[in-house]
């Protein structure tokens, strides 16, 4: 259920992380695309009299957004807490288990194929079960889905990161006659950081998706997912779109926060990326 790439190897700085550091001038094409899209959307809806249940005009969505701002942000915050809780639990458990597995290699070798297989499982189908485990109106059930979704990509990537240390680095450490703990602290953990953050960015997106889909299967009406479902059913499409907008803003914000944390934690890396040519 990873809907962002598990890269062959992590780029020094992925996606938005690098964009944060871009110069303002580099943003001009992106802003142009946004303005153009909104313009065509607005114009098209007006010109062709597109029915509002098909696609409301951006202006109508914006009106719904501003009119319901208070309720929307409250719903968004509710959902975001679920996502954040699940993210913390899932990623935390994944990192801890990855460290154990990286320390005892035979265990890791035995478990990795299963973790990779689990990564290929549509875990989202598990969402209704967590609603049976926990009171569906509480946040716990959604946190559980989000946590399970976050777990596998982070686990697989961190194990890979912790074990992708160059043999000579280990030889050097051996020449200093230091213990396993120091090797972990000085070599394995720093080496795994780019891998960790690549997967944390994936997990931030998955956590939001997990929370919202969990809510879809039954959740408190204080949440985004349940409201999107209800508003769509009641033909309140402008409001549903406004809720989607809130979900996107929170999702992007979450992703950017992780990307920023990556930037701060791996400052030592050279700038680079797609435009390396």
């Amino acid at each position, binding site marked *: 259920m990873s809907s962002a790439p598990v890269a062959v190897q992590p780029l020094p700085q992925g996606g938005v992380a690098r964009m944060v550091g871009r110069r303002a001038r580099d943003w001009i094409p992106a802003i142009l695309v946004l303005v153009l899209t909104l313009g065509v959307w607005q114009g098209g809806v007006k010109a062709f009299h597109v029915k509002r249940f098909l696609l409301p005009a951006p202006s109508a969505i914006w009106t719904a957004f501003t009119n319901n701002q208070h309720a929307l942000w409250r719903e968004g915050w509710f959902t975001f807490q679920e996502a954040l809780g699940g993210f913390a639990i899932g990623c935390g458990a994944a990192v801890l288990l990855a460290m154990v597995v990286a320390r005892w290699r035979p265990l890791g070798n*035995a478990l*990795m194929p299963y973790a990779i297989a689990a990564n290929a*499982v*549509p875990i989202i189908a598990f969402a209704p079960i967590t609603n049976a485990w926990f009171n569906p109106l509480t946040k716990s059930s959604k946190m559980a889905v989000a946590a399970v979704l976050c777990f596998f990509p982070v686990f697989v990537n961190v194990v890979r990161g912790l074990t992708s240390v160059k043999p000579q680095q280990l030889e050097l450490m051996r020449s200093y006659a230091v213990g396993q703990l120091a090797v972990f602290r000085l070599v394995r953990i720093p080496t795994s950081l780019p891998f960790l953050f690549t997967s944390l960015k994936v997990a931030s997106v998955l956590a939001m998706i997990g929370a919202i889909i969990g809510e879809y299967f039954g959740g408190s009406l204080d949440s985004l997912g349940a409201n999107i479902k209800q508003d769509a059913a009641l033909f309140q499409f402008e409001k549903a779109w406004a809720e989607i907008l809130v979900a996107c803003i929170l999702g992007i914000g979450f992703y950017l926060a992780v990307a920023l944390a990556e930037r701060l934690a791996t400052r030592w890396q050279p700038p680079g990326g797609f*435009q390396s040519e």
Partner: protein
Amino acid sequence: MSAIAIGQHGRPRVDGVTRSLEKASLFFVVLAVLYGIWEGYRWLGIHFGWTHPFAVNDTTMPHIHDMVNALFQPTRAGGPLLVGILWRASLFTAKEAALGFAMGAVGGFALGTLLAHSRVLQRGFLPYVVASQTVPILAIAPMVVVWLASLHVTAWISVAVIAAYLTFFPVAINTLRGLHSADRRALELMRSYAASTWTILWKLRFPASLPYLFAALKVSATASIVGAIVGELPSGIAGGLGGAILNFAQYYTFAPQNLWATNIVAAALGITFFLVVLGAERIVVRRAPENLA
């Protein structure tokens, strides 16, 4: 997995059979351990009346043998066996996912290739390609179905479009990344032959991008199944696994094992898709066993 690949290195071939046996027995050992953990936790939970993190009982944690058993029982008296229902549902969902996967992969590859050749386009579109993934796809799924229905598109194709949406992103990003991964010296060699942009793309950049592309396709294989299942949920399509999940979720308190059994089948479908892509990779990118998964 790469650790296993390293372990294979330089061992005499005689060990091959032994190692396959070892692997097979390890597989069953791990399965048995997982089974033991599940049943053990269940027993302890019921015995001591655990309520944290959730109350353990037959509804929350059915016996694993009950789940498997449920597959070979009819869901209602005189009806077909569950496994038969789920088999047809899997084929239906697989059809949606496969079409979506194909559309998403082609679209993603095309966009990735386009962006790789223009920095302005890259700056213009890349932020939105990344941002598009934070859109909770489930939320827009009903709109997509309504849009396409108004264009007289069959419902299952709408679901394929949703699956394509999830497939597309990893492929686009990794195509871009892969096309840029070509060795600088190899590029210079191509330029020294005065090769055209197309020749360089086809003879050099594309082969260089294959490991990246397959890494993305493996992620996308699962994503397409997720997209298909999620797409079925709000579209009122009952024929697939998403419909089955929705249906059995409603009757969960009466027959929890049915939903668990459906999950097992969904997992099997996801892993099957993954393995198909893995097999394709093995054939196409013979030189890169270390890129497994």
